[in-house]
């Protein structure tokens, strides 16, 4: 399956995307406009609604949802002491069901130390290295997925929140990626997911592509996977060049997609075909 995970050092300095973001923002108005290409807020639909009844049933029932297997593992990992500091997540954060409520719904969140947003997986690794003094967990590893889905599960049903002004340049950078043509097909994400959602592509209805249920159990993968993994799949499908795991382009895209889905309820862990 190739090298799926790579451990990257924390991002430093300005990336091309960040510079592009600043330029784009300077050209746009200072607030975040809903541009004419966007799906109207009231017409937004979760991919859940386009699934078959059987797949919906798989997601709805906790004991039939394979994603819950990782939530069980995450519950154990939350309480396991690890690292040179010998601390567990629970030692600082207590019971996730109360302290983590709503957290995943507002990630990626701005990290003041880094001057940029971080997603849930990166946040967990920051906690591990800085507070537990434990090594980073590889992207898409069982352990990182277990912890991130455990945290995301605590936000189930809560509306996605994207109201931090500091995220504005990164949302614009993500929008730039979402709307630019790329790859051998010279296709932009917006062409399918905003302009032609609901129509069929290879027999499957095109979803609007909201990240309401991540990390999710994808039937195609037969395992749980993160939003970054899905975005990589999209880029491969478009025959575009994929960024490595942890690239700031993914975080910018995630930040934009969460803004695009603001107000929609979280479904993690979802099930998708």
């Amino acid at each position, binding site marked *: *399956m190739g090298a799926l995970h790579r451990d990257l050092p924390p991002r430093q300095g300005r990336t091309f995307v960040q510079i592009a973001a600043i330029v784009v923002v300077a050209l746009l108005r200072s607030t975040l406009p809903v541009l004419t290409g966007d799906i109207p807020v009231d017409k937004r639909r979760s991919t859940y609604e386009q699934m*078959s009844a059987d797949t919906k049933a*798989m997601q709805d029932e906790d004991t039939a949802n394979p994603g819950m297997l990782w939530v069980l593992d995450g519950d154990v990992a939350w309480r396991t002491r690890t690292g040179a500091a010998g601390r567990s997540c629970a030692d600082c954060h207590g019971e996730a069901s109360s302290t983590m409520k709503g957290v995943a719904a507002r990630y990626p969140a701005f990290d003041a130390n880094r001057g940029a947003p971080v997603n849930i997986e990166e946040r967990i690794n920051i906690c591990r290295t800085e507070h537990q003094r434990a090594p980073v967990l590889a992207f898409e590893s069982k352990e990182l997925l277990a912890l991130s889905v455990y945290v995301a599960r605590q936000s189930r049903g809560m509306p996605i929140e994207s109201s931090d002004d500091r995220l504005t340049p990164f949302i614009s950078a993500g929008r730039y990626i979402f709307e630019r043509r790329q790859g051998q097909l010279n296709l932009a994400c917006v062409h399918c997911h905003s302009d032609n959602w609901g129509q069929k592509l*290879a027999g499957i209805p095109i979803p609007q592509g909201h990240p309401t249920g991540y990390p999710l159990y994808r039937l*195609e993968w*037969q395992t749980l996977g993160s939003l970054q993994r899905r975005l990589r799949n999209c880029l491969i499908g478009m025959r575009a060049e994929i960024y490595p795991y942890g690239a700031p382009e993914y975080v910018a895209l995630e930040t934009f997609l969460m803004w695009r889905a603001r107000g929609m309820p979280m479904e993690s862990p979802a099930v998708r075909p």
Partner: protein
Amino acid sequence: MAGKRIDQPRRKRRQVATRRDALRSAGAIAAGVAFPTLWLRRAAATPADMRAAIAKVVGDAKLNVGRVKLEIPPLVENGNTVPCTVSVDSPMTPEAYVKAIHVFNEKNPQPNVISARLSPRAGRASIATRIRLTDTQTVVAIAEMSDGSFWSDSISVIITLGACLENLI
């Protein structure tokens, strides 16, 4: 990219292809001789394999059609996880009950899917699971009754494939 030199006369280009082909088939034969099992393994089963697998279970008995209801959605979003339910019309008493339920397919590499053993303690002869189907094909469910009779149902399933796959292969 070798071999695409336009200035070369056609004759020569054809010769190069032929030589390459000869080498390729020689290599394949050599591989086959060294690893004979690779030649025997088929990529996919055939309806004949499914019939053979069913014959192993049913033997000489007559395979009746009916009493069994095999439920698979007619159009499946992803062949990796296909919901499959088999229910059998049976009182499930110690005198008349379903001994076993077998499911077969015709195009996966292997014809068997699941074999379940039941008893009168089941109360209801019904099982549900999630299976893998490699391609659009027929699936057959067979119920083995306590009186030695066999009943079956079959269904045709269309498998679609997602648009943006992870692997390029």
